[in-house]
Structures are given as structure tokens and as C-alpha cells.
């Protein structure tokens, strides 16, 4: 099968996946004990006022009718209007993409730049104190919750050393300096778990490759250790590392929810939390659909990358 054929089939395969996600999210929201109308109406509202709002939002219609109206609109690219903000969901998401994308990119960049060399170093010095420190950090990175790391970094760099702001986000259009400055702490916070994950995987993969004959051959030919490690070992160990990085990007979706809340970043994670707390159905549905789509696309991209990293892989 040609690469394009495979790509086409995979893209086609996303349609039933998205459909299942849509049905699942829609049902889950409707079946949970919640009522956006009661939340919107406020504490002083009477039962009658709540019922009026429910009717305006169309929540008194049969569930199946609500589903067909929503899915029909989604197919035409209309994700509806937020129950709360009086803005279209598309515009709400549009406003929130930049902060989340910035945070995700910074996080992955930091994670890869730190974790891959650490993992290679740990494999190279297998059994040494460096290896033990890296592995110890990995266990710690996995174990400590994101918000704890966040608070610790805030205390250290923002409150105590006064180097960085405590919270907030500055758009890139308002200045690159401020944009970077406000992304450092949240990205560092979020990257800790990915550094742990990627460093561990890199170490294991490189360690396995280092015992291969071709590595011994490279060394016997007199190549320096750096070339052996990064050109021969790392390249051959790349497939599982890329898989983990790909999974890591997908896992980021969960991480940004917490990190954006702690650091007050108005991104998609924050939007998701706010929408869930307020039972803003149209927004929740659209954001989950978007996240699912991104997840599917990342998996596809990782599969495509395999063929570049390992020419033996063919679809």
C-alpha cells in the first residue's frame, strides 16, 4: 500500500472515532446530574425562572432532538453559542488556542532538550551515580503532582527570588520578552513529568542499542564517543522515544488543564475547567471534540514519523 493510501485510510478512520466521541460526550453531559439553566439563573432565581432559561437554551427538548440539532450544526462547522458567554464557541476556542499552543510547544521543547541528553548520558554511564540521579529524578518527576511542582517553582522563582511573574499570560503580539517570561514557569512545571518519562525511555532504548554489534564496530573504528552515542545509538533508539514524545503531547492535554488553572493562563485547559464547572454544554462538547481530533492527528503524525526514522518500516 502506498503511503498516501495509508494516510487516506487513516484519515477516513478518524470519522467513526470522532462520531463515537461526539455521541459519548453528548450522552455523558446529559446523563450527569446537572442543569446549566439553574446555574445561569443564580441563587435568587425561582423555579419558574430556571424553567424559562431551560426552555430558551432548548434543554427541555427530547435528548435525541438536541443531539441531531447539535450534530447537524457541527457538520456545517457551527459549534453553537456558549450558554454563558454569549459568544460563539468557535470564537471562544480561537481566543484560547494561542496560550495553550505556546505552553505545549515550550513544554515539549524543554522536555526534549533536557530529557534526551539526560537519558543518553544515563545510558552511557549505566550504573554510575549520574544514572542513579537521572533515574531518581524520573521517579520523582512521575510521583509529584503538577500543581505541587507549580507551587514550588512559583515560591522559588517568583516569590522568593522575584525573577518571574507569579501568574498570567502575555500574548506574543504584545511583546516576545513578556511572552517568554510568562511561559517559563508553567512550561517548566508541566515539563517535569515529560522529562521523567522521556529520559527514562531514552535511557532504556539507548542502553539496549549500546549492546548491539554495530556500536561495538563503530567504537572499534575509532569514532569518538559523542558520535557513537548521538549518531549511531540515539538514531537507532529513536522509534520508541518518538512514540513516547507523541504520547506525551497527547497527555499534555490533561496537564494544561491543571497548569493553566494554577498559572492563570487563559487557554483551552482553563476554558475546559470553566465550561465543565458551569455545565456549558456547547463549549465542553466542542473542546472535547477538538482535543480528540488533536489526539488522533498526533498518533497519525507519530506513525508517519516512523517511516522517516526507520526506513525499514513501510505501510
Amino acid at each position, binding site marked *: 500500500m502506498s503511503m498516501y493510501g495509508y494516510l487516506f485510510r487513516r484519515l477516513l478512520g478518524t470519522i467513526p472515532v470522532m462520531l463515537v466521541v461526539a455521541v459519548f460526550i453528548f450522552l455523558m453531559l446529559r446523563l*450527569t*446530574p*446537572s*442543569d446549566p439553566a*439553574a*446555574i*445561569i*439563573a*443564580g*441563587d*435568587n*432565581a*425561582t*423555579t*419558574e*425562572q*430556571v424553567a*424559562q*432559561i431551560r426552555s*430558551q437554551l432548548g434543554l427541555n427538548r427530547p435528548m435525541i432532538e438536541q443531539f441531531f440539532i447539535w450534530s447537524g450544526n457541527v457538520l456545517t462547522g457551527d459549534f453553537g453559542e456558549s450558554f*454563558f*458567554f*454569549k*459568544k460563539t464557541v468557535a470564537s*471562544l476556542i480561537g*481566543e*484560547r488556542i494561542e496560550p495553550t499552543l505556546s505552553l505545549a510547544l515550550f513544554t515539549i521543547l524543554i522536555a526534549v532538550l533536557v530529557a534526551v541528553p539526560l537519558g543518553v548520558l544515563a545510558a552511557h554511564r549505566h550504573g554510575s551515580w549520574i544514572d542513579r540521579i537521572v533515574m531518581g529524578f524520573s521517579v520523582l518527576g512521575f510521583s509529584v503532582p503538577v500543581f505541587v511542582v507549580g*507551587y514550588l517553582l*512559583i515560591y522559588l*522563582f*517568583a*516569590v522568593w527570588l*522575584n*525573577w*518571574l*511573574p*507569579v*501568574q*498570567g*499570560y502575555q500574548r506574543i503580539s504584545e*511583546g516576545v*520578552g*513578556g511572552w*517568554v*517570561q510568562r511561559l*517559563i514557569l508553567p512550561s517548566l512545571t508541566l515539563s517535569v513529568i515529560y522529562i521523567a518519562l522521556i529520559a527514562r525511555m531514552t535511557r532504556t532504548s539507548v542502553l539496549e542499542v549500546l549492546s548491539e554489534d554495530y556500536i561495538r564496530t563503530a567504537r572499534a573504528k575509532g569514532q569518538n564517543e559523542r558520535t557513537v552515542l548521538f549518531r549511531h545509538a540515539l538514531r537507532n533508539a529513536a522509534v520508541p522515544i518518538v512514540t513516547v514524545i507523541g504520547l506525551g503531547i497527547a497527555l499534555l492535554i490533561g496537564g494544561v488543564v491543571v497548569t493553566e*488553572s*494554577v*498559572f*492563570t493562563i*487563559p487557554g483551552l485547559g*482553563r*476554558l475546559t*475547567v*470553566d465550561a465543565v*464547572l*458551569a*455545565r456549558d454544554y456547547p463549549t465542553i462538547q466542542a473542546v472535547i471534540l477538538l482535543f480528540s481530533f488533536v489526539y488522533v492527528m498526533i498518533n497519525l503524525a507519530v506513525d508517519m514519523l516512523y517511516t522517516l526514522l526507520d526506513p525499514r518500516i513501510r505501510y
Partner: protein
Amino acid sequence: MKMLRNAILAAAFTAGLAVAAPPAMAQTTLRVVMHSDLKILDPIWTTAYIVRNHGYMIYDTLLAQDEKGAIKPQMVEKYETSADKKTYTFTLREGLLWHDGKPVSSEDCIASIKRWAVKDSLGQKMMTYVASIDAVDAKTFTIKLKEPTGLVELGLSKPSSNVPFMMPKRVADTDPNKQIEDFTGSGPFVFVKDEWKPGDKTVYVKFDKYKPRSEPASGLTGGKIAKVDRVEWRAISDAQQAINALQKGEIDFIEAPSHDLLPTLKNDPNVTVFVSPLAKNQYVFRPNTLHKPFDNPKIRHALWYAFNQEDFLMATIGDENYIKPCKALFICDTPLASTKGMDGLLTSNAKKAQELLKEAGYDGTPVLLMHSTDLKVLTNLAPVAKSLMEKAGFKVDMQSMDWQTLVARRAKKDPPSAGGWNAFLTSWVAADVMNPISTAYVNAGCDKASFGWPCDEKLEKLRSDFASETDPAKQKAIAEEVQLRVIEYTPEIPVGEWVAPVAMRKNVKGYLTSPVPVLWNVEITK
């Protein structure tokens, strides 16, 4: 060595960014963290407090209450009552303008009153007395009554949700059940819609053409002078982060700092913690009168003996500086406050409660008590209630859920076994519960009453009597009768008052003592 060098370089880079960052914002921008994010913009359409606070930024009211609760003219220059107390004549102040530069007129005010009165419970009651509202000229209008009532002044000066904010006629003509889309007000600040980013910030700028009253500001009355050029409401949902940001000077003011974090702020020389004596709140226990066991008033009455206020207050607020056990139904230190009929009640007399339950024939039906877990000021209320009720002989099935689920569930009239409920606890802003008309849980109008649906002709008769009375002394006497009937019938139980302090940087001055947070008069000094 290289690692060390790289670490130093990274630190230098970070520090460099900090230095290269833009300078702090101009001193005339007040950066505020309110108690929640602003999502809805129509203060008549919803009763949410954050929308009410938004309303006070951009709208004005005809009448208002000062810091002592006295009703005074605000947008009106004067108002007069006819000798038979059946006609009110209001005359607007000269020079009042909408944010679009057009003058405020009688027609605008009439449309605003009518829209408010459709939504607000006090407004609805007031309108049952109103024969007509007519414009006399551009600056004068009358409210003619079928019979005298004290509700006109009380309603038009109502300090909390729904506040009768004045809007231009074209806006006020919007169907009350639909949200407005034009946010033109006549208040001291202008809403900047283009900069409104839900989940991030809400922006207001000073309205240069606002004409403040000449009297000094007091409560919600007097000169509303915007002393900063711009106000930004920043949406910081994490309580600890809001405190960090205040201490670092990234924000200037927090409307509702968490009580457990106040000691940190009190030790900070750059921060002031201010307790407005009017920023009171009242915890209440609300039984559902539709279902067993609380369909029996005698069983509900036993709760007055089961509970004590100190336990609730210490479990939630936990600091004696911010709590006040107060048995008065209509808020201590306010005109209608009274402890009449409260002797021996709210003292956790378990023995007496057990006797009453026995007399009432309580058969051990479990009480489904809804426990909200995510709002810090409410979280510990239900466990305390459960403990005290069990000591009194009740069986309690406490079910934990987030507040929004509770809000949805309390609207259900189904039996507890079918997704309904028996009781929950909540907190009211004092301004909402200072008289028998605006206090939602005293409304015993059956289906028209709030969740819990008490149905009591006697209580409704007393509320009507209060509405028809214009003499404050007689109003107070009726309010006491209401309180006695509430004790007997038990549509709610007050379980203590608490105050919510605000926190601000030391250079923020002029914050007013008011029942709701308002930001006019606030300035940032050098």
C-alpha cells in the same frame, strides 16, 4: 563544569527577561480579582452576584442605601410622596448622561423599572401595588399606586440581586427573559466589550462625563467618583495564586480572599485586610417541605433545638474575628433585626430536640442532606449539620456533590429516592435577607416559592402586611411576627453570620463600607 556554566547562563537569561519586561502598568489602572469570573453581562437576567457587581460598575440606580441602610436619592434629584401615599413623583438630576452621550430620560427609567420588576421577586411584589408609571416630562415621572406600600423605596434602592439598574429605553425594552446585548449604562465606569475576555479579564474605563452627586460617598449613595482611569478584573481562580499575585504587586485588590490564607496577608506590610461591617453573609439551612420527614413542620421545628451557630461558623470560617453568631432572622445590627422568639433556640439542646421528634411522630425516615464539596465557605456546613442532627435523633443520609450539581438537584421536586432531596445549606449576602419580602426562603408561596417550596398562608399574609405598611415601626413589628412564624413553620434556619474581608495593596485607598463591593472612590496613591 559545562552544566554549571549552562545553568548560570540560563539563570542570566531568565533574569534578563525579567529586566527587559515591560514596565509596570500605569498607576491609574486598578487590577482586581473578584470572587468569580464574569460570564454573563445582564444583571437583570441573572441573580448571580458577580453580574450584580458588574452592574454597579457601569449602571446607576434611582435610589440607594447608605452605609447605615438609609434610603437616599441617587440618580434622582428628589422624590416626593403624595399625602395619600399613593403617588410617588421622581425628578431626575440634571446632567445625567448615558455612556453614548445621550441624556438620561424618564422614559429610560420607566422601561428599566418595568424590566427589572418582571424578573425580581421584590419588584414583582411591588408591581402588584402599582397602578401606572407615567412620564410627566423628560426629567420627571410618577409611580401611582392602587394602595400605599413601602415597597417602592425599598425596591428601587434594593442593594443586591436583582438591583434595579437604569438602562437606556432601547436596552430596557429587551424581553426580560432574553439577555441584553447593548451594555450602555450611566454609571461611573464604561464597560469595554472589545477587551472582555472571559476567563482572562474584564475591562472598564472611567466615564469622563459622569456627574457625581455632591454629597460624600456613603455605602451605595453619594458621589460616585471614579478615581482610577481603568479597572481590570483579572480572572485568577486559584486562591493561593491570587494571594501570591497581590503580595508581589501584580494585582491591587482581592474581593474575597480565602479565610485560611488571611494570616499570610496580615503579616505582609504591603497589604491591608479590610473588613467592611456591612459585607455580612448569613448561613442558612433549607429543608424541603414537600417530602418526608420535613413535610411535617413539627419535625422541622426540632431543628431549631438541634443546631447551634458556633459549630457551623467555626467549622467553616474558623476565625472568631470574622464570625458572628446571630439569631436574628433579618441580620443583626440592621433595622429589622430582632431576637424575639429565639430564647432557648439554636443551643444544641439535643434532649429537647429528641422530645420534639418523638411528639411529632418522627419514624426514622432518613434526611437526604446535600453536601457541596467545592466551595470552601460551604464545604463544612453539611457535616456539622449531619452531626448535630444525628445527636438529636435524626437519621441522615449525607450525599456529597459539587455545588453546581446541588444547584441542579435542588430545583427538582422529586422525592429523595427519585433524585430529589430533603435539605441543603447555603449562604446569603446579608443585603438579600434584610426584610421579609426580599428574603427568598421566607417566601412561602407554594409553587412560587424558592426551592423547598414552603406553603403557608399565615406567612404569606404577614409578608403582604409588611408590603402594605409604610411606617418603619409597624414594619418592624410585622417583621418580628414573620420571625415568630418562621420559627414555628421553619422554612429555613439561620445558622450564623460571617463577614468576608477584602484585601488590597497598602497604596489602595478609599474602599467604601458597603453591603456589596463597589470600586468607585477607590484610588491608587503613590
